[in-house]
């Protein structure tokens, strides 16, 4: 694991992916990309990012199930995961947080909010 904090972006829409990646790059984070939950899980195990930005509506396995799997494995259980979703219902925030997500971002993503949430989840930020 390198020193630079690393963010894994799990997102199937390339344009959205690009937006998030470019913003995080700009802020200074290293980024990893995965287009499906499966890819994301593999990358998470392998590279152990600090934070995962997990799109919820993914083809095949969705973001919520991916979280369950991440939490089930010791290697990935401690990674902070932010739910990124386009479902804009009022209760969603509570629901996702209750499901175990560490953060919650609504699409369309607020590009100022994004780096803030990620920064807040980086180790050392709690202090």
């Amino acid at each position, binding site marked *: 694991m390198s020193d630079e904090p690393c963010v894994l972006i799990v997102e*199937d*829409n*390339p*344009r959205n992916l*690009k*937006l998030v990646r470019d913003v995080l790059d700009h802020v200074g984070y290293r980024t990893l990309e995965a*287009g499906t939950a499966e890819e994301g899980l593999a990358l998470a195990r392998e590279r152990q990012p600090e934070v995962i930005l997990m799109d919820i509506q993914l*083809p*095949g396995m969705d973001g919520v199930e991916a979280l369950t799997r991440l939490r089930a494995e010791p290697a990935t259980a401690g990674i902070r995961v932010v739910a990124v979703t386009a479902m804009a219902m009022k209760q969603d925030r509570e629901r996702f947080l209750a499901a175990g997500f560490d953060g919650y971002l609504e699409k369309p993503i607020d590009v100022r909010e994004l780096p803030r949430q990620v920064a807040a989840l980086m180790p050392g930020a709690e202090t």
Partner: protein
Amino acid sequence: MLGRRPQDEDSATHMDPAAAAEPDTSTPEARAARLERDVADAIEQQAATSEVLQTIGRSAFELEPVFETVVRHAVRLCDADAGLMYRLDGDVYRLVTAVGGGEDYRRYLAEHPVAVGTGTLVGLVESGRRTVQIQDAESDPRYLWQEARELGGFHSIVGVPMLAADRVAGVIVLWRDEVDPFDERTIGLVMTFAAQGAIAIQNVELFQALQQRSAELARSVDELRALEEVSHAVSASLALDEEVLQTVVERAVELSGADGGSIFELDRPAGEFALRTCAGTSPTLAGELRRIRIPLGETFIGRAAADGRARQATDLEAEPSDAHLEALKADGWRSLIAVPLRREQESIGILVIRRRTTGRFEPQTVTLLETLASHSAVAIHNARVFRELEAKTQELEVASRHKSEFLASMSHELRTPLNAVIGFSDVLLERMFGELNPRQEEYVLDIRNSGRHLLDLINEILDLSRIEAGRMELELGAASLPDLLDQGVAMVRERALRHGIALGLTIAPGVGMVRADEVKLMQVVVNLLSNAVKFTPDGGSVDVRAEVSGTDVLVTVRDTGIGIPEEERERIFEAFQRGGRGARTSVEGTGLGLTLSRRILDLHGGRLWMESAVGEGSTFSFTVPQLAGATAAPRERETALAALPEPGQADTILVIEDDRRSAELLQLYLEDAGYRVAVARDGVDGLDLARRIAPTAVVLDVLLPRLNGWDVLARLKRDPDTAAIPVVVVSMLDERGAGFALGAAEYLVKPVHHEELLRAVTRCVAPPAGGRTVVAIDDDPVELDLVEAVLGPQGWSVIRALGGEEGVRVVARERPAVVLLDLLMPDVDGFEVVERLRADPRVADVPIVVLTSKDMTAADCERLRGRISVLARKGTFRQDQLADVVRRLGAGRAGQPEGAP
């Protein structure tokens, strides 16, 4: 008349041989006296007959006068002592007239009608259906009615039947006190009267039957009128107001000859009947009736309603009492009939008709009331339903209007911000206000494309909503499916190339115009094609096929993508579902395409479906109806490609066309078919080349520089070196007549389809299937002689066919080079011959020359357009022209000198 002896058995006289009295004819004086008497008798009888007939004529409807006259005359002329007439009444004979015989006798007879089959004279006459004479009733064992005989005091009696149709309608009886039998002549006379009497009876019976029928009819008409009035009232005001029911009850009362009535309607929740309306009822009673409760199953009428059947109370006093009946009785009503108004096994009302007298209602009346009742029940129900329907419709209309307005305003609202997004992005991209660095450009493009994507999505949603709301209207017209597919393929070609995906398009013969909204169908085509390309991995292929399937065109788009699993197959047609069709999830896709496509095809009267196997790819298929009537063109294509002969080495086609692209296209088509092609770009060069290379055929455009196509054509035909070369004229305009008149072998109108051109050229170039045979079809043998005279010497073998029917047969059999056809023929005419020949693939391509004296209307020409080669008028068309035309049409390969057999 006198002495006439009827021959038929029915009226054969039955007499004792010795009964007739013999006249004395011994001396001339006696004979003379006899003759005198005969004449006198004859005159008297004439007078009698005349009077009888007059009586019949005068009183066609009353029989008594006739009977009386007949019997009176009969008695006198026959010299009888009394005469009677009996008439059949049911199964007995009654005395209707008596002359003489005495009061007592007559009364006795009147009181004792004669039954059939008895031993009375009448009985005997009836059973034998013929005249019976009994010389002496007192002693004859056959005669059994001795009381009558004793009262009357007669001895000789004769009875003559009055026959009407198949029965003895009556009997005339004459008797004499003494034993003095009636002679033949006399009996003959009575039989004449009997015949007249029978006619009279028949007349009257017919008349009575007629009257009865008329009465029935009048009654039916009345009933119908009443029903009609009711119907009218009901339909005029489908709201069930008092008026309608009022009409019903009033008509019912009238038609049943009653004094009053009421209609009650069921109040469903309360389970009771309430008064709706009444007729012939005092306001006091009406008030009472309104007050009274009539639960279903209680009170006389309530029970009738529960039963579901009409019920009569012939005397209200005799019925168990109830509030309703009491009220009626108090008001003077004595009898009633209650008819339930039934609707689907339930009584929804009661029609009550009442009288102020006791008694039954006749069965006919009951039937009528039941009819009226069922009619009213339907009316009540309909009115109710209609009201509900109206309310619903109103609601729906309001909702629909809201929905439309909503759609419209939503559409506007959603599009407005997008204007800004797309607009400003474009502005930036155009560098209108300054340069963009690569990163900026990239982002602005992303913005704009996302905006466009959103716009597409909005449009699709709106389309979908509109379809769902029943508001999408297709502009159905004629669309060329091959063109649509071409364009669709062109649109995805670039993307396919980028991914190394091979695109294939195969259009089967017969696929042509379809009935479609071109824009929407294109949407579908593009949707399917772009999906196919999108979901096929690099190096794969997308194959599009179109073929005719019944009355539709079937299009399939097959890709070699990863396929769609079973569970996804229907789901992908649902809105916004993007099935697991591969790793490359779409940036551009909206997830609506297939949903919309399916709906659009539904609206076209077609279908969209798919088949797929995981790992092997998917095939999306759709059908769209062909344009009716466009099948003529496609079929032509079919026959064309079927039998194209291989062009020989020497087959060169000269194309004279100034437009580069058109020329290239023509060249392409022809070379593709194996011909060698020479091209000239103007008329002068064209002529020149034609003379030099002597091509097999010439394809000639009309609009040419330097020398226009018509001139070229004319000159080609005038020059003996080139006259025999068939020329296919290709023009923007349809001036077929001029073309053929100048000698064109074929005439095509731009844009020219591949197959069309080849077919035309082939026809010019190929050896004539029929050698030197010509079939001439005409109903006039003289015309056929003429054709033979003209073409025979030219080396043609002319086969004659007299009339259309024979013509079709002969052509099918002979497969000639050319057909000469008259139009005006009885039975199968020329038009029909053309139809039938064109429908027969064996001879569909045989050129037809129509030679007619018919004044051709535009419609006539239209019927033949495109199906015959030449239309010529008999008389004005010269013989050498005919030979020319035939020669041209049946021309062989190039090089064959003109006129050679």
